[in-house]
């Protein structure tokens, strides 16, 4: 059976790494004799292999290689020792304590903020209250008598209950 080019090229790839069975190799060679495109492909593959070779001189790390590695290891061990100060068994308890404190501080801040913004609270800023009142009256003064604004004004003045 004749070998197709796609299959032949897969087999060339295997042949480069000496992975081809002798019988398949014979069939590949027969195909190659009749197919200049696959012969070119094979030549190209050998040319590529040669092209991507790495210069031998670049295959050793610098003399400081181990020293830098040692520094990295020492640094990691120091970090590990620091974490060892907090035993693993205590970590969930510490997490719960942190969440609890977060809630407490949020609540305290909320109470503090609420006190500051509550204008009706005793001692609240009187000028703010006066400003709101003036604003309300001025805003609704020129509105038609049957408008929602005018009704709201009457409500503010205690006419509607």
């Amino acid at each position: 059976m004749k070998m197709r080019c796609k299959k032949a090229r897969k087999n060339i790839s295997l042949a480069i790494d000496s992975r081809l069975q002798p019988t398949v190799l014979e069939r590949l060679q027969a195909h190659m004799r009749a197919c200049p495109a696959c012969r070119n492909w094979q030549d190209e593959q050998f040319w590529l292999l040669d092209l991507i070779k790495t210069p031998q001189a670049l295959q050793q790390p610098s003399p400081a290689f181990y020293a830098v590695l040692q520094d990295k290891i020492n640094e990691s061990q120091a970090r590990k020792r620091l974490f060892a100060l907090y035993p693993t068994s205590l970590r969930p308890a510490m997490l719960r304590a942190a969440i609890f404190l977060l809630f407490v501080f949020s609540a305290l801040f909320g109470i503090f903020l609420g006190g500051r913004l509550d204008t009706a609270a005793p001692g609240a800023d009187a000028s703010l209250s006066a400003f709101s009142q003036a604003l309300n009256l001025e805003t609704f003064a020129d509105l038609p008598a049957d408008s929602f604004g005018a009704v709201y004004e009457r409500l503010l003045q205690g006419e509607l209950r």
Partner: protein
Amino acid sequence: MDENAEKADDELLALTAAGDEVAFCELVGRYQGKVFGLAYRYVRDRQDAEELAQEIFFKVWKYARTFKGRSAFGTWLYRLAVNTCLNDRQKKKNDPEPLPLLGDFATATAAVGTEILIQERRILVNKALNALPARQKMALILANFEGKSYEEIAAIMEISVAAVETLLFRARQNLAVFLRPLKNKGEL
């Protein structure tokens, strides 16, 4: 004579797992050339390769106790190295293109014509290799430069032998696609 020099890799790794820095140093000495070579072929930049090789040995130190001896130490080390290289590529995927040109040009300007051509050729080849999908490139390196058999590559990359065959075929096919136009233009 250093007593560690006669010990097998597995023994040295067991000592490393127990925190023996001398044993670890011996292990690094034995394999630093191979690991650096693999990293260099993968990233094709000396500085990056050295950093990658250090990361690989750092992982050897860190994960020494996880070695169960189910595979040979060499396979375990290569697996660690290959995964570190592949992850590194993943991490750097969004980084801008590395600039090997700076050093290369500095050397090139000082060199004569042929030297410049070699440098330029190397840059083009590096670009083509870096354009390959990470696993194809790694399979190619392991097969053609590390002298690993398909079975060994399969064990290192944790894939089947058939998958290794496919990866290698596709790598070669892609490399030819990238470099053929340059060859035809006479740039290589």
